[in-house]
């Protein structure tokens, strides 16, 4: 567990982020930028999950829900704007406000119930409760039911045009930067201290006069709201919503990314997501049966690098030093 934000890690991340931009500007290739936008948004979602999982011991498979809430707000506003002809529904700030309220609200309800349990029980409960929302989305026939639907309109902001791909990329980069900075601030804050203490020893937190469940719940809500914004950006990026974003395996993928990068480290989840989704992108365009290879990869990492690849690197470095 570390609350350090490694400068080298940040520099490398900065360089990685520049690659798609250079590819687009210098060579006119927008493929990396398109893939990169999605990856960076998912990386931010992974950072938000790591906040509760790594620093708060809440392995939540309900994280898909909040991504879904964000995405479906965009979808619903687009749908009803077309149906009623009301342009104000497309206002980006209004939508963001809705996203924050709804994802935080959903997180408060799910969190309050799941926090009756701990550890793997928490995981099971969050999975089951999260699926309620999946079922709801899959049954929402006006939004395409199981198949999902393409968006008629993206969210509209003054000046910024989300229809423009480089704009979306820049926003994704800024969003990720804000989420990393924000979670660093949060982990270092008095609240972060209480959250970390709750993970290590809830009795201690109780004995200084704080309710551990209240500390955990606030973290869960904050993390859910961040994931909601990630879902909002994701829907605007893909121009499409479907219930699959709400399936528990979406949160499962984020967990894998966190585990590969290093649980409870500031930048591990970011690198984990980049590695995982890049591997997925490469494998899926190379092999028909890429999931098989992907599965083998995950099993191998978990079996032979139990604390994540980041930890493995660190240990190798320590041995050399």
């Amino acid at each position, binding site marked *: 567990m570390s609350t350090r934000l490694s400068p080298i890690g940040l520099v490398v991340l900065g360089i990685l982020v520049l690659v798609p931009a250079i590819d687009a500007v210098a060579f006119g290739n927008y493929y990396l930028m398109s893939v990169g936008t999605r990856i960076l948004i998912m990386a931010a979602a992974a950072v938000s999950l790591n906040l509760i999982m790594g620093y708060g011991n809440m392995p939540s498979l309900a994280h898909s829900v909040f991504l879904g809430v964000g995405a479906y707000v965009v979808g619903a506003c687009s749908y009803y704007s077309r149906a009623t002809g009301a342009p104000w529904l497309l206002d980006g700030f209004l939508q963001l406000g809705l996203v924050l309220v709804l994802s935080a609200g959903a997180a408060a309800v799910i969190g309050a119930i799941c926090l009756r349990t701990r550890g793997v029980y928490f995981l099971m*409960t969050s999975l089951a409760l999260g699926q309620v929302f999946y079922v709801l989305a899959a049954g929402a026939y006006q939004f395409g039911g199981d198949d999902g639907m393409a968006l008629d309109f993206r969210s509209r902001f003054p000046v910024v045009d989300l229809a423009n791909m480089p704009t979306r990329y820049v926003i994704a980069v800024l969003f990720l930067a804000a989420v990393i900075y924000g979670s660093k601030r949060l982990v270092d804050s008095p609240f972060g201290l209480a959250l970390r203490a709750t993970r290590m020893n809830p009795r201690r937190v109780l004995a200084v006069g704080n309710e551990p469940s209240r500390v955990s719940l606030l973290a869960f809500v904050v993390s859910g709201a961040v994931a909601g914004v990630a879902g909002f950006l994701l829907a605007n990026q893909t121009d499409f919503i479907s219930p699959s974003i709400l399936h528990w395996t979406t949160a499962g993928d984020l967990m894998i990314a966190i585990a590969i990068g290093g649980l409870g480290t500031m930048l591990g989840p970011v690198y984990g997501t980049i590695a995982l989704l890049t591997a997925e992108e490469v494998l899926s365009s190379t092999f028909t049966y890429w999931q098989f290879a992907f599965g083998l990869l995950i099993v191998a990492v978990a079996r032979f690098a139990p604390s994540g690849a980041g930890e493995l690197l660190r240990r190798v470095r320590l041995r050399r030093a």
Partner: protein
Amino acid sequence: MASHRKEGRVEGAQALLLVQQVLNGVQLGLMLFLLSAGLTLVFGMMDFLNLAHGTFFMGGAFLGAWINATTGNVWLAIAGATAVMLVLGALLEVGLLRGAYSHGHLDQILITFGLIYIGNDTARMIWGSDGLAMLLPPSLNASVSVLGLHYSLFKLVFIGATVLIAGALAFVLARTRIGMWIRAGAADRETAIALGVDVKQLFTLVFACGAALAGFAGALSAPLLSASLGMGETILVPCLVVIVLGGVGSVAGAFLASLVVGLVDVLGRTYATALTALVVGPTHAATLGPSLSAMLIYLLMAAVLVLRPGGLMGRVQP
């Protein structure tokens, strides 16, 4: 449905529908029990949450459908699928999972999550993306009539076979030495070790039997659901509800919770719209009812968690 000449006839039809749906609920519940029994024992004994447990279910369904299509023998198909999952479970436990018990939960989740990917793609390689239906021979694909109630013969066979298995499981757990070890191990690993049990072999046995039960449930369900990719992840969710409801490590709790979940789910889907209509009127009920019924078992789980965080029959959680 039936003509409405007499009120009594309508009521009779309603009663028959209720009986039919109760049977369906019991059938779903028993299937969930086959899956949950293995899952809860493995978790209770080894502190190992196997997210890929549903993959054995899918494997059983595909194998059953495939063997049935090749040989035309349903019984051979079900037995074969069960046997293959038993062996596969044992191999996985010895070859991969045994070494991961000492790892944290996160790694266990990762490994079993990876296994889901591997399982799904393996099924896709062998049987394609479209899934596989399991066709019953005419002798089984019939319905029985008792007192005006028509019910699928195969579902009755399903219920009968599952009750037999559940009974056998209860007998083994309650009356045999191995069963005693398993119960001791599920309650407290240290006790089992103190009893001089070879825990390693016991774990392998329990894991393999859990996989076999899941495969059996899959093969038995294939004629009803037909085998498809991703069915394992779908079925895992109600199984976790069952385990949380029943209390982790308790087979009796899992049995009770399975039946409750099966009945609530089936009866909820049947009657939710009508019941919702009483409150909000028929127009809203048509859209609200189905969503509400799909959520019922989760609401039930939430309610039990609030009232009894350890589950219906669970020991107190750590």
